[in-house]
């Protein structure tokens, strides 16, 4: 069974179409990165998946309609909607008591074990914790819940590099077990490239690109080319070109690797570069 199955998913706010007839299928056990510029419709799509907003079209999450069957669905779905939405008045111990009291799949020992690795005190209130610690606490609560789908909407926004790295390491090593599904949105795309299994670009409420990371690596290639070979490279119709230190870096879609190897070293592009190529509109030529 697919974890998420959407057909013609659509959401309109007044005159604005936030999500414009999206078809999406996410199998269980995948880690999907949902990438898009601000206002692309990412959060609206996630809100529909989480049953936080009504929508048009067909949507099934774990076989359920998230709008009408939200109460049952939330036993199997967890999310971090935003940094620092933990109530500021709450004590750490109260958060553990509360989640343990209301969530049937919460394993308190697991949350305690995770918190023991941090410097968070049980008696602290959330408002006394740093931004990074609040996210650690939230992650400790979420990871101790045996959910089948975890949605992370900009979970590391505003955190420093160490906390961000630790966040994704923990998620991957201590949480992901190939039967859970994780959806992540973030602007720090390069940091999640290595953990994703699938990639979706969304812009203007539409899916611009949908690919597994295997296909992504097979399909897209990046070559750094010396100026004298630039015209040969352009002849192969790159989807993007940029200049670095006097050399041109070309991004190719579905071009034979052997032909590219003749131009220079072939690498897998970063998601960020592909994102710029796809979202930045036409190919930018920085040449004089």
């Amino acid at each position, binding site marked *: 069974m697919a974890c998420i199955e959407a057909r013609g998913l659509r959401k309109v706010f007044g005159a604005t179409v936030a999500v414009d007839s999206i078809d999406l299928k996410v199998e*269980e*056990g995948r*880690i999907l990165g949902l990438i898009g510029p601000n206002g692309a419709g990412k959060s609206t799509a996630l809100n529909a998946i*989480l049953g*936080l*907003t*009504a929508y048009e079209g067909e949507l099934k999450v774990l076989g359920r309609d998230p709008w009408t069957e939200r*109460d*049952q669905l*939330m*036993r199997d779905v*967890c*999310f*971090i*909607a*935003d940094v*620092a*939405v*933990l*109530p*500021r*008045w*709450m*004590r750490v111990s*109260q958060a553990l*008591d*509360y*989640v*343990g*009291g*209301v*969530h*049937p*799949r*919460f*394993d308190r020992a697991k949350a305690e074990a995770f918190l023991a690795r941090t410097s968070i005190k049980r008696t602290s209130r959330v408002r006394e914790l740093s931004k990074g610690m609040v996210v650690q606490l*939230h992650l400790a609560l979420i990871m101790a819940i*045996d959910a089948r789908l975890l949605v992370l909407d900009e979970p590391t926004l505003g955190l420093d590099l160490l906390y961000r790295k630790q966040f994704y390491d923990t998620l*991957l*090593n201590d949480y*992901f*077990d*190939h*039967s859970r599904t994780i959806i992540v949105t973030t602007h720090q795309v390069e940091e999640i490239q*290595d*953990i*994703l*299994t699938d990639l979706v670009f969304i812009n203007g409420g539409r899916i611009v690109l949908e690919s597994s*990371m*295997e296909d992504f*690596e097979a399909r897209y290639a990046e070559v750094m080319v010396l100026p004298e070979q630039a015209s040969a490279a352009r002849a192969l119709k790159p989807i993007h070109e940029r200049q670095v230190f006097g050399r041109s870096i070309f991004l190719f879609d579905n071009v034979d690797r052997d032909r590219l190897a003749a131009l220079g070293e072939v690498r897998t592009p970063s998601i960020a570069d592909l994102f710029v190529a796809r979202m930045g509109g036409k190919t930018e030529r920085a040449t004089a």
Partner: protein
Amino acid sequence: MTVATDDLAEMAPDRPAPVLNRTRPYYWSVRRELWENRSLHIAPLAVAAVALLGFMISTIGMPERRRGVLALDPVRQVIDVSQPYDFVAVAIIFTMGIVAVTYCLGALHGERRDRSVLFWKSLPISDLTTVLAKATVPFVVLPVIAIGVILAMQLLMLVWSFFVLLLSGVNPFTPLPLAQMAVVLVYGLVTQILWQAPVYGWLLLVSAWARRAPFLWAVLPPLALCMLEKVAFNTHYLATVLGHRLGGGHSEAFVTSTHLAVHKGTPHFPVLGVADLDPAKFLSSPALWVGLVICAACLAGCVWFRRRREPI
């Protein structure tokens, strides 16, 4: 791609069924309201502490006054002696009302304003459970706290005056119908809450609906309607209905004729004893039931809005 490669057994589609906690979402939802809103018990306790201090100061001249009171007939004795006890009860109930209004207006508004609603909604608790837990505060939690604080206060006052009088050589026993007072208190509070139920329902509804300034939205529209009626038709039906709803609980729940005869105009808290309770009149009043239906409709509206309203 460097997905951590756990052992293959974990990739099996059938995960072992996790041990499920026994959960009590409603119980924990109410508890979290108490954690968040500490004013629910701090405010009545603070008022009680101040009132107790005042009572202690007042006992400086009490032995003299008590000698005078004991010379009166028994009914007047009770009326005189019970005054500070009644006053304390009224003060605490009044405090409870203010706390209840503040709480209701913030209950479904504050969580949207600080976006914590997204955390609450990430847990498997239905909007109905949440709204009922929040409604439990004005309808059950606050009255229970008020009754507890009032009874404890009155007990402390009795014990205090017992020793003050004892040391002055006056009969230390205060002539009060304590059991009756407790019954009247509980009955009065329960009937008042039921009578004012639509008010609390309305406040919760505004809290669930308003984007900002819930207090103004709760108060100004009814006032505006009253004014409109007054200016347009020179009548005041709506104002009368609203006023009766806010302050008329007593006349609905208690016998209104007898104590006037007894007091003959003595300015005093009107209810004396269990003889003044009139539950049959209270329960048979259509206005009570109309109010409860309105309250239920408001709570249903709260559930509807909590489902749909987004963080502010």
